[in-house]
């Protein structure tokens, strides 16, 4: 436990966390900068490949696209940032195709940032007049108030395509099933592991966890972002190797009956 009247500049209890954090940061930053000029091939992510088709479908059917980042996140959550990156790409397409984009959210800050993101996309596409700020709206901070509001939009507007990308909680299946009942094509993705199972059952495409974070590199083709995804993969290999070594270590300890070392626990 942390002493009440601590005076030291450095908390020695957090040394393992500090070491791990610094190693991770160095690897990610080094790889990102060292490889930022290289070409990378990112494996095909079906959900992201379907983004263009989903917007195209909505345009053909003369129906809107609905995009919502879920109730569970706020702007400081990396998943929300990743979701806004995908929003930017979707808005690029809706601007060009002149397709209405509706973005209900539970958080006023997310609303403000999303308005900026969508406005920027419409400006970039050369159609600032097609941007409708009222469609990027705050609906309610309450979980089921938000779910009811989005459900209402789904049933009244009958969007042809629905994007459920961000942090979702219990509202996930309510939204996904309502989207399914209006025959919308649905692309979902979340970092909430429990909600993934609901999305997999009810949606056409589901981005699983880290795929949401890889989306901005995948969609934008930005080499620095792609390099950081490569760094992520290197970290994953290192963690897998660490787990493997720890498993072998503890198995050998158990077999030989030696005193547990637990050096990997922190």
């Amino acid at each position, binding site marked *: 436990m942390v002493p009440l009247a601590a005076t030291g500049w450095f908390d020695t209890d957090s040394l393992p966390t500090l070491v791990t954090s610094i190693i991770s940061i160095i690897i990610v930053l080094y790889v990102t900068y060292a490889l930022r000029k290289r070409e990378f091939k990112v494996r095909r992510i079906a959900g992201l490949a379907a983004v263009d088709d989903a917007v195209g479908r909505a345009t053909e059917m003369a129906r809107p696209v609905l995009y919502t980042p879920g109730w569970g996140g706020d702007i400081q959550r990396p998943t929300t940032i990743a979701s806004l990156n995908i929003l930017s790409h979707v808005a690029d397409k809706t601007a060009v195709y002149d397709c209405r984009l509706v973005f209900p959210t539970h958080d006023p800050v997310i609303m403000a940032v999303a308005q900026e993101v969508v406005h920027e996309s419409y400006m970039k596409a050369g159609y600032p007049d097609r941007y409708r700020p009222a469609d990027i709206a705050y609906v309610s901070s*309450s979980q089921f108030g938000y779910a009811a509001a989005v459900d209402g939009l789904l049933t009244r507007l009958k969007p042809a395509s629905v994007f459920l990308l961000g942090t979702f*909680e*219990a509202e996930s299946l309510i939204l996904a099933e309502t989207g399914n009942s209006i025959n919308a094509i649905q692309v979902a993705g979340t970092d909430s592991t429990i909600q993934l199972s609901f999305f997999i059952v009810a949606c056409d495409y589901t981005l699983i966890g880290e795929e949401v974070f890889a989306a901005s590199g995948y969609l934008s083709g930005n080499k620095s972002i792609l390099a950081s995804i490569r760094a992520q993969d290197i970290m994953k290999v290192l963690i897998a190797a660490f787990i493997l070594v720890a498993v072998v270590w503890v198995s050998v300890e158990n077999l030989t009956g030696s005193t547990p070392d637990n050096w990997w626990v922190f």
Partner: protein
Amino acid sequence: MRRLQARHYTFLGLAVVITVTMLLNIRLDTRVSPYTRALHDYIESLPPGSVLMVSFDHEASSLPEIRPIARSVLRHAFRKGHRLIGVSLLAEGTLIGYRLMQETAAEYGRQYGSDYVYLGFRPQYIAAILAMGESIRDTYPRDYLGRPYDQFELLRSVENYDDVAAVLSIADGSLTTHWMEYGQARYGVVVLGAVTAAMATTYDPYLASAQMHAMMAGLRGAAEYEKLIGIGGGGARGMLAQSSAHLYVILLIVLGNVAYFVRRREGRRD
């Protein structure tokens, strides 16, 4: 009138199953799981008078499931003589938490101020959890009813998480994760969970890694806890409805698969 579709019949069927079984009011016997037993045993093992922080991290919507969960564990804590500090990190859980603590404390003749205090809601849960790690007094200068922190005998000896045996997060979402990521990781406080059934598996990895000390989940968890403390409640009462709804869903899965295979066979014949 629009014609009813298959899904409308499934909805109606579920409504009938739940309504009928709730009216029957039959209590089924429940086998206690190791998860629920671990939470019970932890609270039982604390010496009487230990300070527990109970955080009502839920909204009003999940009340039918949350109430029996909360009541069972609050009853146990009050009966054991623990002292409770109530907080809420979601605005909607605030009054619900206050009422639950007040009602349960009254059952055991516990006094506000010395046996329990309710501090109420603070916005921005991450900031609130971190701030209480520094000073609960500064985070909540007054209790829920607006009286100064130091007026209460129970609170005078509580500065931050160092003076709290554990935090029990009663949650219907992922807020308990923040208690572990910030309260446990940063300040080392013991985190206990009492969560809705849908959230149970979310917390399994934390439970296995001991970031969460113990957890009970759902109406079934409440029924198990009620059995352990020997007091009947909403958990046991709701188990028939829940069990019947589960069987109904299994029936739907079977029907869906029969229809799928029949259609596939017909398709092959054609």
